[in-house]
């Protein structure tokens, strides 16, 4: 069952993510994935996260699939033009990868190859349109395909963006373009998330709230200063600051956030960023 079907059947959908390594030593990543397997419905594989060159998302999705794990293929528009993107979407389908998360991608200069030429031939909205077009049996230039793929298309949204209206307008466009589910940027303020969910109720699309595990008070402060649309309240920073066992506190906070927001949305997307081993603990503590 793909993510949209799970959400539609009324099941609370749980996803996590792995980031492919810079290099070819995949042991650690697969161990993390195996640890989460069985506890989550699917695992996202990031696509050159933060514009840092790494092992590819599609190859990693294939590896997960081989181990019986449902992957979510993250695709950004930063590094490929429409020819390569369409080709990779077809490749994903023949490898049995159904869930595709369509993103714009970070700007090239923010990563470890600032000299590279950014592509952005398509954007997240037109990437969704493109995937739909392939499903309809045609490519972007209108040429007929020999056999058409089927996808479960996802997209992202930042509930904490300020102003929020442009984000919602874009979310609406993503739904129009074919997005069947949304995973959000990290959320730490349940009340604000409730307001967001009310504002997007009319879109009638499953939303999975994003949870990033806090590793320290410093990380929280860093995100507040540098990550768009993410705000960790002072009370949580203080909790982290005072905690004797930070890992335990981190798990506790994540679980609490999930419990507080569970009834507001259709699923949760846990981004552990290095603490994948703790994802089962978070789920235990959240009663999932």
């Amino acid at each position, binding site marked *: 069952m793909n993510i949209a079907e799970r959400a539609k059947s009324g099941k609370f959908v749980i996803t996590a993510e792995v980031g492919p390594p810079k290099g070819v030593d995949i042991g650690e990543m697969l161990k993390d994935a195996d640890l989460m397997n069985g506890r989550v419905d699917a695992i996202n594989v990031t696509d050159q996260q933060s514009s840092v060159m790494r092992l590819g998302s599609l190859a990693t999705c294939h590896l997960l699939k081989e181990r019986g794990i449902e992957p979510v293929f993250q695709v950004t528009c*930063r590094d490929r033009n*429409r020819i390569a993107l369409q080709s990779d979407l077809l490749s994903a389908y023949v490898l049995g990868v159904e869930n595709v998360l369509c993103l*714009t*991608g*970070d*700007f090239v*200069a*923010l990563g470890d190859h600032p000299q590279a030429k*950014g592509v*952005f*031939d*398509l*954007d*997240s*909205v*037109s990437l969704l*349109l*493109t995937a739909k077009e392939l499903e309809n049996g045609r490519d*972007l230039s209108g040429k007929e395909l020999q056999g058409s793929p089927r996808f479960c298309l996802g997209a*992202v*949204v*930042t509930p904490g*963006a*300020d*102003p929020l*209206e*442009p*984000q919602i*307008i*874009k979310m*609406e*466009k993503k739904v*129009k*373009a074919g997005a069947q589910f949304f995973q959000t*940027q990290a959320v730490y303020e349940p009340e604000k998330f409730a307001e967001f969910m009310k504002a997007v109720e009319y879109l009638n699309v499953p939303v999975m709230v994003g949870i990033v595990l806090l590793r320290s008070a410093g990380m929280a402060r860093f995100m507040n200063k*540098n990550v*768009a*649309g993410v705000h960790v309240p002072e009370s949580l920073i203080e909790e982290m600051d005072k905690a004797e066992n930070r890992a335990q506190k981190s798990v506790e906070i994540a679980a609490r956030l999930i419990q507080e927001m569970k009834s507001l949305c259709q699923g949760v997307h846990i981004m552990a960023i290095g603490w994948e081993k703790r994802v089962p603990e978070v789920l235990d503590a959240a009663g999932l």
Partner: protein
Amino acid sequence: MIISEQKPLTEILKSLEGEQRIFLVGCKGCAEACHTGGEAQVLEMKNQLEGEGKTITGYSVIDFLCDKALVKFRLKAHEGDIISSDSLLVMTCGIGVQATSAVVDRVTHPACNTINAGGSRGEWRGDERCLECGECLLDYTGGICPLTACTKSLINGPCGGAMNGKCEFEGDTRDCGWHLIYERLKKLDHLDRMRIVLQPKDFSKMRPPAHLRNTIMWALERKEKEVPAK
């Protein structure tokens, strides 16, 4: 010189849908030379639009629409006509449309597509930049170009990277283009424009078309290259 060509009348009329009173703006610079926005073309457009039942509230043909200060100064004389108009139709390159948009709080529609002339540049003095994409989108974006104002040239709205209206890249000096577009459309009560899903751009329109490469300027450049260096 910046090369432009007029958009088809059907496209112009579509962009003016629901608007009755239109003020026309032309340019005596490149657009006049291209026969897309000189006085003659402005008057022709006036006739065509009046034939379609529109009211032309007035017009102004300005020496260089890329000169924002001049545009502001010259349009001042038409303030009353402009205030009483639903929108302005600007018959020039993308820079001229953006410069007009920057000094007038009215919807500005582009009447032309700006075509890449192979690297030659006109003169511009403000923030406005035109990528000469050959498929002008300024009508959808409140007269601010998403290709040049957005670091990623996104055409369907902001990415999630902007903070406090600043770009994720060099945010201390770079505005988020889509934040500017959003604020502008909100001010013009035209956020409906932002809700339109735009198809992937046709970047083949950016290449100088054959008829341009056949001009005397292109021929001269080729000739120069053929003269052996001594």
